[in-house]
């Protein structure tokens, strides 16, 4: 049976993309799988009694070494801020390519804590900073120094000791460009080095908290129980910076979604599921419920979504246990059809992620296809005609063409880059100044304008000639030819309308990272947790790949 890939007009709607959940394809899970055989080491740990100083952690295999260099600094309480405009943090980190010398560490000590205002070099691969969850960190130090383990309930509520507020890579602030490292097999798959940084930062937080507790009370202090460590991740505050990323990298976005869609298609095409496979699917699904019941947020929007998801999942599990027969042919296809007919899209996408759990053989080869050589698709095929481009737009943007951008509500917002730290922002064009400096992220509006201009041009005109008179539409002409080849490269929604929920765009990206427990703090930023429940570095060599649900 040949199951078609899902229609991009459904999958690429923002509400659907904003319902995605982590899966086997997620970058933090594929990172752990790739690096499980590498040798982990703490190479340097020079912290003072309060936990301030320098530490280095590394992964090594044969001649290749990646070293996380950590700089922990004293921070005044009133200087601590998760906002991107902050200038100081509790700790700053960089992932170094190789083994850093003392000279490297000295150089980086002056640059890394400055973050966006520092200068990195081609030897550094990623850059980040993090702030303590002061309440949790202090509680853990106090407990451990008194010889007792911390309150698990409090830890479960927050889920981490530190949260990062940005992770940079790919040439930012002088970091190594991707071309220098892209041919390394261990980093096929997007954001692998960013994931490594976050993972090693997590270990740093455990070692630091143990160190501070030990110094506070050397006689009595105990180390944080490894099982508790495992239950903690790294938090992350994420703002709108991620939203333009997915618009600005269309082929990369396509490859992420395409991998997910091909996985689903292949799973739906399985004629007979082995009992071990169906049991693993059900087991992961049932265990995963605890990730939902322990999902804390004050966001009304998210609380509503969680309630609905939980209700749907409980109902779906009852259906699985009491009504569904896995011995029938094409069981996952039947399940998928049942989901689409009966449940909200949040639940549908949640179960789609779960369906991948038993099928390593389907998912693993797709992970290597999730990067993109974007420059390959940059040139516009200008020898093609107006008629061809019009046809592409009619086929690939049919929903977009229905939007009336003359209506205020469909043209309400504009994306811009703020002077403060060059961060992307979204604002109401009728209330705020600056819409003349709008970023080219209103793809739907500009595609519609392109279509209108094409419609009054001669059909046999070449795109070369069309562009010589329509230079203002060049950016969307490029996109339209990309979407012709990459069906999931474009969000099929209006990114400047009144109805936009920007965190849907963040959710999409974060789900591919492997984040859990999305906690929207407004419609424009959210907190998440990464690596919660993940094996510790010493446990990597023999870990359970389904750790997310344990």
């Amino acid at each position, binding site marked *: 049976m040949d199951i078609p890939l899902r229609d991009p007009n459904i999958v690429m709607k923002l509400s659907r993309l904003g319902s995605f959940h982590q899966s086997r394809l997620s970058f933090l899970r594929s990172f752990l799988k790739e690096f499980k055989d590498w040798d982990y080491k703490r190479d340097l740990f020079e912290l003072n009694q309060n936990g301030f100083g320098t530490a280095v952690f590394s992964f090594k295999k044969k001649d290749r070494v990646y070293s996380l260099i950590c700089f922990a600094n004293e921070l005044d309480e009133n200087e601590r801020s998760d906002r991107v405009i902050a200038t100081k943090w509790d700790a700053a980190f960089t992932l170094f390519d190789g083994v850093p010398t003392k000279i490297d560490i000295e150089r980086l000590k002056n640059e890394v804590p400055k973050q966006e205002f520092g200068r990195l070099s081609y030897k550094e691969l990623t850059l980040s900073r993090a702030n303590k969850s002061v309440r949790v960190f202090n509680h853990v130090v106090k407990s451990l120094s008194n010889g007792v383990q911390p309150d698990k309930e409090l830890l479960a509520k927050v889920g981490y000791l530190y949260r990062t507020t940005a992770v940079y890579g790919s040439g930012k602030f002088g970091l190594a460009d991707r071309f220098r490292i892209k041919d390394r097999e261990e980093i096929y798959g997007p954001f692998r080095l960013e994931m490594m940084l976050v993972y090693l930062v997590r270990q740093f937080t455990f070692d630091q908290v143990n160190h501070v507790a030990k110094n506070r009370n050397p006689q009595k202090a105990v180390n944080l129980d490894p099982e508790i460590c495992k239950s903690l991740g790294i938090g992350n505050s994420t703002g709108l910076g991620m939203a333009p990323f997915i618009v600005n990298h269309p082929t990369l976005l396509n490859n992420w979604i395409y991998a997910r869609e091909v996985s689903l298609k292949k799973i739906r095409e399985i004629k007979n599921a082995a009992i071990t496979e169906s049991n693993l699917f059900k087991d992961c699904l049932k265990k995963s419920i605890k990730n939902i019941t322990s999902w804390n947020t004050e966001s009304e929007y998210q609380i509503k979504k969680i309630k609905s998801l939980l209700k749907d999942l409980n109902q779906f599990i009852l259906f699985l246990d009491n009504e569904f027969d896995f011995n029938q042919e094409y069981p996952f296809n039947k399940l998928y059809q049942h989901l689409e007919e009966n449940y909200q899209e949040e639940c549908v996408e949640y179960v789609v992620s779960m369906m991948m759990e038993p099928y390593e053989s389907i998912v693993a080869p797709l992970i290597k296809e999730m990067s993109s050589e974007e420059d390959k698709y940059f*040139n516009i095929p200008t020898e093609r005609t107006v008629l061809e481009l019009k046809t592409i737009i009619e086929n690939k943007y049919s929903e977009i063409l229905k939007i009336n951008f003359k209506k205020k509500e469909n043209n309400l917002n504009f994306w811009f880059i703020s002077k403060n730290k060059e961060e992307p922002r979204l604002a109401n064009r009728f209330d705020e100044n600056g819409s003349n400096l709008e970023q080219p992220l209103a793809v739907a509006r500009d595609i519609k304008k392109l279509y209108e201009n094409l419609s009054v041009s001669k059909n046999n005109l070449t795109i070369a000639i069309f562009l*010589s008179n329509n230079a203002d539409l060049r950016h969307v002409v490029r996109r339209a030819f990309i979407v012709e080849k990459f069906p999931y490269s474009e969000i099929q929604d209006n990114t400047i309308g009144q109805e936009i929920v920007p965190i849907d765009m963040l959710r999409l990206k974060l789900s591919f990272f492997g984040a859990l427990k999305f906690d929207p703090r407004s419609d424009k930023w959210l907190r998440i947790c990464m690596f919660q429940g993940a094996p510790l570095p010493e446990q990597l060599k023999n870990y359970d790949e389904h750790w997310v649900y344990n």
Partner: protein
Amino acid sequence: MKSLSEIDTVSKRSSRAAGYSWGIAEEVGKNIKLLEIFSLPGIKNLNDFLNSKKNIKLENLNLITEENSSNNFQYCPVIAGVNFLDQIKTLENLNEIKFKNIAYPMLFLPFVSRASEIIGKRILLKLDEKEFLMNFNNCIHSNFFKKEIIKIAESVSIKILKNEDSFTENEWKELYKLSEETFVEESESLKNSGAGAGLTDND
């Protein structure tokens, strides 16, 4: 040292700020990155051009022909370059394309280099006395090595070179003969067991 990603982004944004559309600014970003990869003075020329752009009168060359002569003003290197790139499929059969007065011609050059890749032919670009041989956008051979700003090229010529060997047939034969010394003489039994052996092709 600035990364290529920073060079791309800043070139793109500054070009947009100077009045180019986003789509053209994206082209400039990629081009300046390319120039810097080839060790040519991209940022230097772009910076000077964008800063002086409002003080010089530029003409937009939209349709490229064999002879392109600006009547009053210098040609804008970006617009001329974009259109050269876009129209390369119709221009590739011309023997030579000439331009008079292109401002900041280093900014025109990467469009020609990219055009070389698109048509799969080498292109020889002459900016007055400076020569640049574009090799499919993989590398550029040149007699110009200075990291300097070129404000104008009065005479620009582009020759799209035919895909021809750079060696004589005799040189090829000699080399081929030598390569044959890696082959083994076949015995009758080996001949009889080769692909297609023992069958008649007429059945």
